[in-house]
């Protein structure tokens, strides 16, 4: 029973918010490859949203494009979510492995990512007065993904509803701490770099004179 291929599992999980992930867990299904592909698609979608949006809605400054923020807003956020959730839920008797959290969370994002692509597509056919259609697509995608994320975390750790809420809230806190430490680390490294660089310039100057 339930001998689905990897692709069929994706469809099953997305279209069955209540029991889809439970079934996946039960059959130990889910593919890292597909999950990674989804996250990369999210990254591409974020860039599409910024660069390929219909001109009538808004426009961005061509001179200011930088890819780093998009990487941070999609891939880095996703990875911190996975690591943060794993760290929190390991302490809270969660049963999910890092691999499973990664796969389930990625699958849960599919409606949201799809909604971005649909929005970008629609923005080329609609005018400003009809913007309500675009926001409808956006909210449907967002809510659907929200429900799926909840269901995914609930299934992967075998939590009760309340515990899932707590776990998600704590995960967000953990993500913030991680990002804060990351920024701190980066700025410290930069200072160390500046220190050694000034040592180098000083030495080079002494040698020259």
């Amino acid at each position, binding site marked *: *029973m*339930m*001998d*689905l291929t990897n692709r*069929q599992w994706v469809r*099953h999980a997305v279209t069955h918010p209540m*029991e889809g992930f439970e*079934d996946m867990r*039960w059959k130990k299904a889910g593919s890292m490859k597909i999950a990674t592909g989804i996250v990369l698609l999210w990254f591409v979608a974020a860039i599409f949203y910024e660069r390929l949006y219909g*001109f*009538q*809605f*808004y*426009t961005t*400054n061509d*001179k200011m494009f930088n890819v780093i923020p998009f990487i941070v807003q999609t891939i880095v956020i996703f990875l911190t979510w996975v690591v943060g959730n794993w760290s929190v839920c390991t302490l809270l008797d969660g049963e999910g492995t890092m691999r499973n959290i990664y796969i389930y969370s990625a699958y849960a994002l599919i409606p949201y990512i799809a909604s971005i692509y649909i929005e970008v597509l629609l923005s080329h*056919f609609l*005018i*400003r007065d009809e913007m309500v259609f675009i926001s409808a697509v956006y909210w449907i995608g967002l809510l659907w993904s929200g429900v799926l994320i909840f269901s995914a975390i609930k299934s992967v750790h075998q939590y009760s509803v309340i515990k899932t809420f707590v776990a998600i809230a704590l995960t967000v806190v953990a993500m913030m701490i991680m990002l804060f430490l990351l920024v701190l680390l980066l700025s410290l490294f930069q200072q160390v770099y500046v220190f050694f660089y000034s040592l180098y310039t000083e030495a080079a100057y002494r040698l020259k004179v």
Partner: protein
Amino acid sequence: MHKKIQRIAAAACAAVLAGSMLTGLTAAADEHYDVYNYDRWEEAIPSQAGYMATRSVSGDDLGIGDFSEPSDLFRDTEDQLYIVDTKNNRIVVTDAGVTKVIRVMEEFTMPDGSRTKLKAPEGIYVSPESGLIYIADYSNSRVLVTDADGNVQLEVTKPESELFASELTFLPQKVIADKAGNIYIVLGNITTGAAMFDAEGNFKGYYGANTVEATSQVITNYFWKLISTDEMRSRQARTVPTGITNFDLDDEGFIYTCTQSTSQKKDTVKKLNPAGNNLFASLDTSWGDIQSVWDANTSKNYQSMICDIEISDDGNINCLDLTTGRVFQYDEEGNLLFIFGSTSEQLGGFTEVSAVESCGTEILVLDARKNTVTVFEETDFGSIVHEATVLYNDGYYEEALDPWFRVLQYDGNYRRAFLGISAAYLVQGNYKDSMKYAKLADSPYRYNRAFEGYRQEWLSEHMTQLVIGIVLIIAGILVLSWYVKKHHKPNAEYDLTKAAPREEE
């Protein structure tokens, strides 16, 4: 031999260069400062000069001795130019071109026959309706209303009114009068707006006060005041708006005020209706330079301070910036047209500007330190932009099309030209080009309008194809699903009911 060839080649190059300078280059190259404008992203970009300084006139050139800290300029309807020569206690009246003196006003006859002299006058206004001259006589604490021959009709002094607190000084700096003869006076040290007097000289109240900008400091002060005692409150700095610095009247009777302030960003330029409401409140124009410039030498942030405002006959708004010596010209809707002038010793540069006045195609700027009047003449580029702007603002989009294209020949970065062309094509129903130019102008709003029309047109043209296409696609899907059903073996895909019962863990 070799050197000779080199020399000839160099000479030839120089000749070609010189030739191209004479013919090819446009006005901007003649200015000693970088002419710039702002693009849609509020970044300064090079532009063409709309005005060029042609000459500067001192009092000596006019044969009446040098000016001394002149502080106001005014052109009346008969094209006479009034220069308020503050420290010389006189008013010099010249022709519009500032070439010859018509008369010098120093002494006036009071209604009782006595003679009176000015003392450091700072402002002047000549009513287009009555021809009366209004002089803000600063150190004498009065405003004189006189006819052209120097007979004083009315003397406005510190009002004996309950509305005007008696401890306040009465130091008139600028004066205007509306069509009804009401007199508005900008007073030194008064932040509650311009003092308003009726035609008989009775004090009526204040007009056009600035509002306090809600900066973080103001908000903090407000909360401190809520919890502090009366004694503490009395020692606290009071939150008062900056007083208006200067004003002008347009043909329709609207009063434009400007406020010279380093701290205030809001309300620096206002257009007031008779009720005192600011019609420019919803405008997102930032008057003067958009970014402030940090000067490392003086450790100061240089920010525009609009010290004079003037409405020209065709409705353009000229704002004079004290900090940078620049004139910012806006059209009646607050769109920036040109920036010209600088702080320097050369012609077209200033030390301390005090007043700006327009005169047909010329703009005159008064410098209180150099004691000169500098005449800026409109360039070819300037006149085309003005022509296009006036047509555009009056709604003649199609007529403005040709001038806008000529503007682009001078300056391919001039955003308003792209907007104008887009609007014109939209009116003509040429949606595709309208979209193209809206995109060049970086205007999603205009693009949206053009796209709406384009989509409408496209739909009505391709309706049959569209319907056939949709029908074909639906039919294709139906056929395909039927085919798949027939030839594909069903697996347990979605039949969850048949799923084996879960093992207890």
